[in-house]
């Protein structure tokens, strides 16, 4: 017998009560890990870029397409120096968990607009001239060890080909420098030709550069005015503004996650705190006996506190462990939708710290009460 076995025996005193507390703790920490991963996935996507660009979107929603013909019309405006278009493609490489941003683009205007993404002239001309070609960011090519000339199969879940196939093949023309991580660009001309009828001659959004940056607001009004009365009205914003709006939506996700977590942990503190207080009240005479035998006030308080921490930390480890076990499955199912769904070691470390803090908070009242307990009064109370 030692103090550790006494601690264990105390935790198992009321197995049902302890198990219920343990399970709620585990669920809270599972939830913590999931929300943390979602929050990470959403905040990972925002990167830095130029200031003088404008993004032209459907007025209806960020996800509505625009007709390809808008590109020519906008290009013809004097206020616009250059414009390029992009589509959402999605899909995955070999396995659903291998997902990354993929856009069908017009090679020349794309690299003209996104001039911070650097491509060699040689690679760019291969990208233009080989119909089925694609270019990968250096990070992406390195991740899958792709070499120029490799065939890259991309499995689709949104865009079938005209021939009915969901599997697309691209030939890697080369790589380009991009500081934002994994990105695959495919040739729009080929995409537009091969995609099923309903997807043809559509673009997701346009990105342009205005001729006179200080006059960007005038340019925006002119562009949107052009399509005001068409069936596909646009909404143009500076890229900066666009990113701010996007980031504020991401911010919302983060905020909602933290609110849910706060509610969960508030409940857990009440629940576990109540259990700990109850367990303490039942043990007053026992703690008094320990003091009678010569255990110091501090030793008794430490025992009570250690029990609370042990319960919270073991529940926390269990919940975190389950989350880590679920991770591969969740990543396969959700990863494609929200980038990557990963439980970082950092989140797991947070969870442990949080569990310890929780134990301290929950155990504080019983521990202080145990410390203050006077033997004579406590023994008389029974």
């Amino acid at each position: 017998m030692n103090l550790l076995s006494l601690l264990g025996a105390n935790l198992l005193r009321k197995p049902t009560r302890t198990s219920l507390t343990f399970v709620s703790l585990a669920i809270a920490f599972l939830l913590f890990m999931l929300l943390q991963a979602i929050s990470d996935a959403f905040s990972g996507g925002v990167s830095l870029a130029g200031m003088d660009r404008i993004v032209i979107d459907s007025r209806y929603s960020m996800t509505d397409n625009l007709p390809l013909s808008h590109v020519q019309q906008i290009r013809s405006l004097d206020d616009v120096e250059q414009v390029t278009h992009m589509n959402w493609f999605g899909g995955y490489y070999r396995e659903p968990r291998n997902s990354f941003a993929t856009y069908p683009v017009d090679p020349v205007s794309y690299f003209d607009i996104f001039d911070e993404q650097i491509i060699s002239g040689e690679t760019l001309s291969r990208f233009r001239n080989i119909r089925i070609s694609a270019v990968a960011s250096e990070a992406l090519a390195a991740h899958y060890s792709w070499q120029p000339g490799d065939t890259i199969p991309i499995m689709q879940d949104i865009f079938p080909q005209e021939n009915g196939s969901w599997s697309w093949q691209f030939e890697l023309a080369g790589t380009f420098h991009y500081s934002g991580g994994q990105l695959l660009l495919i040739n729009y001309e080929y995409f537009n030709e091969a995609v099923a009828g309903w997807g043809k001659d559509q673009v997701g959004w346009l990105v342009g550069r205005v001729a006179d940056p200080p006059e960007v607001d005038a340019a925006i009004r002119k562009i949107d005015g052009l399509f005001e009365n068409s069936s596909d009205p646009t909404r143009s914003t500076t890229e900066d503004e666009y990113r701010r709006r996007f980031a504020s939506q991401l911010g919302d996700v983060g905020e909602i996650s933290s609110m849910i977590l706060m509610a969960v942990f508030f409940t857990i503190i009440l629940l576990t705190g109540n259990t700990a207080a109850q367990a303490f009240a039942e043990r007053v005479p026992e703690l008094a006996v320990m003091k009678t035998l010569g255990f110091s006030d501090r030793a008794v308080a430490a025992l009570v506190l250690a029990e609370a921490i042990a319960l919270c930390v073991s529940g926390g480890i269990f919940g975190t462990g389950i989350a880590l076990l679920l991770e591969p499955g969740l990543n396969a199912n959700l990863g494609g939708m929200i980038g990557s769904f990963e439980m970082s070691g950092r989140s797991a470390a947070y969870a442990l710290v949080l569990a310890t803090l929780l134990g301290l908070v929950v155990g504080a009242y019983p521990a202080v009460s145990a410390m203050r307990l006077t033997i004579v009064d406590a023994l008389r109370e029974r």
Partner: protein
Amino acid sequence: MSELIRCTNVCKDYVRGAESIRVLRNVDLSVAVGTIVALMGPSGSGKTTLLNLIGGLDAPTSGEIEVDGLRLDSVSARHLARWRVRSVGFVFQFYNLLPVLTAQGNVELPLLLTDLSRSERKRNAALALDIVGLGDRGRHKPGELSGGQQQRVAIARALVSDPRLLVCDEPTGDLDRQTADEILELLQTLHRDLGKTIVMVTHDPKAADHAMVTLHMDKGKLASQDDQAASALPSARTVA
């Protein structure tokens, strides 16, 4: 015979709000090593209070208490706690065992405060259980033992660190006649074979028969010990 306990002019007040109640009034007491003392008196007369002071669980309001050479009234609570580990064993009316520990675990508990090794603790606890006749019940939890057996475990726990003094507060108060007699026999044996000094609060006249000195307490006052010595003699004869 040398003196183990000496109380001089001990008073104890309990303060409740603005009110202060004097529970012990100028108690003088001297107990020689190797004595069994029975402390009797009506409920509320201050017996438990006096026992708690002698056992170093509480401090007197005034007066001196010396036990085994230590002035209990002049040391800190921490010091008292450390002193209790080796110097005094407690037995209560309701046994006060830890329900989550086995009999063996309960008896080992006070030894966690000593520097004995794990195996020494185990051995000493087993020995103490043997002495109280429960050598074969070490693995049982208190809930699986009868009242008399639980009290034996409690006595083993009081014995295990080999203190000179045992203080017992109504040790047979919760037991039937036969079991109570067995417990009294056991205490008698501890006195005879191990030389323990025992101070025992009791309402049981039979318990008093086992004692060499019977003290009467009333409203916080102890009838003078000299008077007691006379009345204690017949009891002592009965025992012998």
